């Protein structure tokens, strides 16, 4: 493996919590890599092992082929943007940025020049002599970035750097981070629990759950081809059907037995065999809704449903439907004739249709995953499903 950063079978336990559980992971040079997962899944612990604040109980961490597992943080060419920025309150903006090179005993004049360059880069020249409690949240983040980058690290670690900012600022800093990454070209490892941040910034994403990695891939791979039910539910929304493989119809497809539905077919990328118990996962925007019975081609699944709720969201409409025992979410883009069409309303009977390749079969998820993700029960009668709970945030 020629990965720039490598975690090899790394584990870390706190008391009886397995914060990181036998993780192996490779990150490429220059990549914007994101660790994504719910709070408490071990992202920070993994990042801290790379920064040097945490020793793994077992396993190794390699940077550029060199084992750095035992190296103290000050000897690693890695710098961190902390969640609260951890700027030094007793120093000015300028002194904060100069901290690294000063500690490294670089000549005073050289340090001053570098700091001036950094101040220009983050557009904070006018605030150089302010104290940390005199600048805004966004400015603090920029100072934290400058303070890290001035050391020319091989890797920049970011632990939920946007969490402390309000929505507008978060969107702006997101763009700034992306620009900084393009400018300096070093490897970024970005920790977040926000899928939007991870998806929009990262070249590749590792989705974590309960100390282990569920899936690594490009954002589009993670979204379009989730490998586990955890990923399918955590990234975006999905409709889950419980079923059993009834028949393997060809190399790529199977026929599923799902209570209340007739002959649903699905894409079989995991080589499942007859009799396997599975979840069928279908994204809400992959399902088409119509008043009239659609043409039933061999490549489409068709089902009937009753409309429970219609939520107009401007860019699209979200329908909550009842079909058999299931409560389903369906998103429909509008076309420009939306006002002329006879709208679909509450209690209407409709047809659903989706391409067989848009249905993924996944292993049944564990109870613990459900609690972690707050997956609302999909089956009617299993608790009271609050429609809004599954709405995209």
């Amino acid at each position, binding site marked *: 493996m020629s990965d720039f950063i490598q975690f090899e079978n790394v584990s870390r336990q706190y008391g009886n919590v397995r914060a990181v559980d036998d993780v192996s992971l490779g990150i490429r040079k220059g990549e914007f890599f994101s660790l994504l997962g719910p709070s408490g899944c071990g992202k920070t612990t993994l990042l801290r092992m790379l920064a*040097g604040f945490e020793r793994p109980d077992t396993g190794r961490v390699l940077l550029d082929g060199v084992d750095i597992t035992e190296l103290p943080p000050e000897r690693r060419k890695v710098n961190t943007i902390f969640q*609260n920025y951890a700027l030094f309150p007793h120093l000015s903006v300028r002194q904060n940025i100069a901290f690294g090179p000063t*500690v490294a005993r670089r000549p005073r004049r050289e340090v001053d020049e570098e700091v001036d360059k950094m101040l220009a880069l983050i557009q904070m020249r006018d605030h150089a002599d302010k*104290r940390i409690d005199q600048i805004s949240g966004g400015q603090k983040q920029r100072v934290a970035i400058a303070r890290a980058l001035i050391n020319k690290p091989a890797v920049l670690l970011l632990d939920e750097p946007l969490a402390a900012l309000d929505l507008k600022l978060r969107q702006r800093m997101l763009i700034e981070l992306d620009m900084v990454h393009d400018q300096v070209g070093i490897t970024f490892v970005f920790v977040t629990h926000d899928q939007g941040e991870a998806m929009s910034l990262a070249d590749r994403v590792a989705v974590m759950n309960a100390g282990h990695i569920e899936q690594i891939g490009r954002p589009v791979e993670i979204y379009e081809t989730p490998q586990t039910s955890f990923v399918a539910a955590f990234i975006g929304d999905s409709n889950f059907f419980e079923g059993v493989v009834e028949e393997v119809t060809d190399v790529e497809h199977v026929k599923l037995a799902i209570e209340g539905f007739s002959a649903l077919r699905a894409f079989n990328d995991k080589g499942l065999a007859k009799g396997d118990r599975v979840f069928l996962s279908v994204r809400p925007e992959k399902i088409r809704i119509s008043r009239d019975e659609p043409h039933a081609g061999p490549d489409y699944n068709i089902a009937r449903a009753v409309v429970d709720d219609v939520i107009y969201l401007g860019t699209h409409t979200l329908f909550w439907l009842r079909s058999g025992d299931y409560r389903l979410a369906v998103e429909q883009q509008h076309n420009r004739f939306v006002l002329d069409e006879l709208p679909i309303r509450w209690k209407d009977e409709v047809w659903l249709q989706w391409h067989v390749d848009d249905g993924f079969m996944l292993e049944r998820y564990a109870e613990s995953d459900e609690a972690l993700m707050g997956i609302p029960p999909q089956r009617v009668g299993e608790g009271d499903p609050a429609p809004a709970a599954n709405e995209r945030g």
Partner: protein
Amino acid sequence: MAEARGLLERRHEPWITLPSFLWLVLLFMVPAAIVFAIAFKPSDPFGGIGAGWTLQTLRSLGDPNYPAILWRTIWLSVATTAACLLLATPTAYFMARTSASVRPLLVLAVIVPFWTSFLVRIFAWKVVLHPEGIVKHALAALHLVPQDGSLLYHSGAVLLVLVYTELPFAILPLFAAAEKFDFRLLEAARDLGAGPLRTFWSVFLPGIRRGLLTATLVTLIPALGSYVVPDLVGGPTSEMLGNKIAQRTFMDRNLPHASALSALLALAVLVPSAFAITLARGKRGDGTGGAA
């Protein structure tokens, strides 16, 4: 709103602070002025204060013993303060870093000695350091002190016991500052390339500088005025100014002379305090203080 309230407060400020101001004037400034004034009065043969004014007492401060005693008072106090800060700062650091459930116990451990009388604790030291005591014998057996040497009745013993008595007063303000310190800053410093010592020096100490200042004042000032400790564990060669003031008052019954010495000591206390306060003001001026 906030501005209006500020204005209101400013207008009422003299009235609000009046009681404490009166307290300060009546109980501190007036007595201090009286002590200074008495230094310029003659003494009468019955231990009272005579009529008229004289510079005689001030001249008697020229006693060739006094410079040595004043110098000893200052270096013992400074050494006590330095030793206390050196011991208390790491102690406060570790207290603040222990889990929140253990911390109250540690604070209690620091305070517990106060439940025993100050005098009893110093007598305990006399027992511990006694020439026939176990510590002396142990050290002598290890040839660390001569067989006929003494652990008591010299400046070393005074310093040791002064450090012992002042240490809790140094630990408490330092702990209060360390507890408020954001320890994630230490990780940030390590992350930026500073080793553990550099991190402690450049980030932790500036972070608790308020506590350091308080600890310095609350150990230095009592140490300068101490007389019980040198009286009990010190000898003739380790007298401090406090001993002299006590002698002039109780033995010579020369109040003007005692007052002159007190004034001298008061100046020795006031000068470093004023210096420290100016220093703190300066810091606050450039915005440091606001963070607290």
